């Protein structure tokens, strides 16, 4: 049993990739480490449970990566997806460190594999975890336990004692052996974002947030983030920004994970509850534009939309968890979707009339496009005319939020007055906003977690020695 009366060198709050990388690296640097995971053991690890890969720079192809992905290319990608809303120094530092993480994470027991079936477009840039994110977590936990890191589950923290930017102690909701006050010489906050906290989301999104589905566990409530910001830590990032994709509206409210996603937008059209199109479905290649559809659907009435396609593309994308809703005619499909049949027929016939001839190729930005239609479909536009007709209902699926704590290159939190905290560090989603002002590219969340987790653990351990 963990002795909570002692003072730990490093307290890690959180239990995902960033937390475990921090715990392992602090322990390897000689510190005594306690990890507080707020979730039960099965749900340990927050969003890491649902991840599958990490984006790391590398100068040459490897056994599992099909080609080089240089630091410069990584930086260019980051610049493009964030529209420049990133801290260049931190971002370049992260990208440089990511090269070493490819090997370091293997030393912690994690195993790589080539890109999964259906994700070939990521085969050059992203390294996939053999067995997925939970397998990765299991490996990190086994390593941490072997190294002597103490771990508590169901360990929800209700308060942090912080004085002048210095962490003193944390209070547990439920005492362990009579002890509920945990003292440590340094804190690593790696407790994720607040995406599962609907009330908090409503502060920025209003009642629309009631219609959001949360892709991860209900435990990502952002309570640690809130405490830190309330106790003088400087915030970073736009609170309305998040990673949000369009997921199946039939998915559970929480923890539906990867399998509720839809890759089929480019094969059809997307309409709202008034059966009207609202965005160019052919703007860019999946997965680069995969992450915009959550926000787009969030902006539609009742936060619902429908991906509509026909029998000719029924098997053009990965099989889905929920089968598509089927109609022998467009009117029948509309009725099943509770849309106005005449409106959907009109939208589709106008779309069909605007489609120009071209050569379809979903792997490139092809020349199949509409003309004289608003909004246009600029690529992969083909007539929807082969019965039966299909649709997937979709809602915004929130993966994680970007509001966070500002940090420096040591992963050390900065206080509102700009001064570095004496002993507080942050890693993972709780500080992702430093690097990701907006937008997303597959696997970057895990890069942020591993890179800043390792740095935070190392620096926290060094902080204790000094």
């Amino acid at each position: 049993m963990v002795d909570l009366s002692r003072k730990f060198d490093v307290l890690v709050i959180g239990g995902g990739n960033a937390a475990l990388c921090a715990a392992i690296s602090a322990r390897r640097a000689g510190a005594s480490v306690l990890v507080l995971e707020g979730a039960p053991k099965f749900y340990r690890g927050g969003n890491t449970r649902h991840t599958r890969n990490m984006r790391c720079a590398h100068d040459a192809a490897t056994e599992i990566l099909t080609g080089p992905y240089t630091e410069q290319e990584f930086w260019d990608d980051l610049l493009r997806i964030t529209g420049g809303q990133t801290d260049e120094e931190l971002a370049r530092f992260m990208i440089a460190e990511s090269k070493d993480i490819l090997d370091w994470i293997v030393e912690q027991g994690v195993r790589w594999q080539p890109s999964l079936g259906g994700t070939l477009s990521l085969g050059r840039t992203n390294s996939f975890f053999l067995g997925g994110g939970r397998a990765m977590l299991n490996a990190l936990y086994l390593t941490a336990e072997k190294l002597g890191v103490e771990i508590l589950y169901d360990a929800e923290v209700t308060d942090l004692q912080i004085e002048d930017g210095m962490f003193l102690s944390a209070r547990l909701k439920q005492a362990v052996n009579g002890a509920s006050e945990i003292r440590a010489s340094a804190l690593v906050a790696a407790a994720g974002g607040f995406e599962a906290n609907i009330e908090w989301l409503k502060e920025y999104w209003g009642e629309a947030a009631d219609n959001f589905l949360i892709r991860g566990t209900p435990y990502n409530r952002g309570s640690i983030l809130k405490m830190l910001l309330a106790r003088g830590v400087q915030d970073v990032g736009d609170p309305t920004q998040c990673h949000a994709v369009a997921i199946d509206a039939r998915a559970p409210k929480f923890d539906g994970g990867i399998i509720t996603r839809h890759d089929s937008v480019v094969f059809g059209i997307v309409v709202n509850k008034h059966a009207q199109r609202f965005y160019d479905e052919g703007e860019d290649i999946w997965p680069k534009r995969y992450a915009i559809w959550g926000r787009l659907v969030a902006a539609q009435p009742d936060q619902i939309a429908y991906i509509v396609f026909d029998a000719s593309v029924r098997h053009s994308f990965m099989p889905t968890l929920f089968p598509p809703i089927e109609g022998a005619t467009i009117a029948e499909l509309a009725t099943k979707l509770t849309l106005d049949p005449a409106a959907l027929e009109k939208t589709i016939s106008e779309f069909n009339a605007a489609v120009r001839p071209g050569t379809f190729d979903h792997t490139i930005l092809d020349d199949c496009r509409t003309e004289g239609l608003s909004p246009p479909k600029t690529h992969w536009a083909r007539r929807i005319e082969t019965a039966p007709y299909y649709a997937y209902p979709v809602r915004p699926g929130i993966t994680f939020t970007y509001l966070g704590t500002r940090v420096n290159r040591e992963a050390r939190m900065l206080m509102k007055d700009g001064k570095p905290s004496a002993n507080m560090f942050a890693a993972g989603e709780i500080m992702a906003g430093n690097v990701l002002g907006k937008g997303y590219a597959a696997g970057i969340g895990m890069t942020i977690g591993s890179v800043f987790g390792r740095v935070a653990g190392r620096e926290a351990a060094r902080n204790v020695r000094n």
Partner: protein
Amino acid sequence: MHGTRILDEADRLMTVCNSCRYCEGLCAVFPAMEMRRSFSDGDLNYFANLCHACGACYTDCQFSPPHEFNVNVPQTLAIARAESYAAYAWPRAFAGIFARNGLVISLISALSVAVFILGFAAWHDRQILFGVHTGPGAFYKLMPHNAMAALFGAVFLYAIVALIMGVRAFWRDIGEPVGMKADAGSLWQAIRDAGELRYLDGGGVGCFNEDDRPTDRRRLYHHFTFYGFLLCFASTSVATLYHYLLAREAPYAWWDAPVVLGTFGGVGLLIGPIGLLAGKWKRDPVLVDQKQMGMDTAFIVMLFLTSLTGMALLLLRATSAMGPLLALHLGVVFALFLTMPYGKFVHGIYRFTALVRYARERRAVGHV
């Protein structure tokens, strides 16, 4: 919908897994699944027999219980696998043996041993049954060699015919045309995959047993068991050749091939089953089909007893215990062969067949 409740559940799980695919690097089941978008009964039975029950996909799955998606592939495929054994059994009338396997096999074994002992006793007087016999032909004083060969040849032949008929039904069910010859490359690939138990390694770390710490112990003990069995089988085969080709009669000297092969095999067949059984009792029940416990235990114990009685016979063959021990050994071996098509033994046959099918599929889509 499918023929059985468990195939419906397997279909539900494969639909979940096919939209996730995180486990595709762990074993052969998930790559085979990815080659399909929908699943027939035969497809699901194929996956069930391709699964080596390492448990890695359960431990790695973000949707395993208590998650509401309730994804438990190892247990579901274990149940489907057991049901498939019964479905392919030949003749059909014996399919029910799988459901009461522990009971049936223990009864047959007891009966078989009793018949050999009684047979020896009825045939001979006490002096011969409890006498000391040494030198070539000692065993045949108790049972003539031709009688022994005819009896065991017949039961062995029956087992082979029944197994072939089962494999034929399986092969047809999983969508391969009957009579089609497996290509040599796929066959060789399957022999290698089965020989090293490639897919019992959880994707490289070992398989999951009593907790979430993988070990390679099950594979090790299975190797002891399987190769022990093969060596024992080789021992018997060499002895038969000695008898008919070289006119050399058992028992053989300790340095002679049948005894050396049998001793090494016998030791493997003692260590392996003990390890497998101990592991089985400790294994996390969530990973297994508890209803199969009787069948699994019966087969493991039969293998162990085959070796134990054989080793005892070897050690005590120059004493007056030889007669009863020979009856015991022959009784156990007879029961083992007789029940082979209706017990756990078939797992190896169907799994190997599934591996051949998998190797063929992989070739067909360009993996060599």
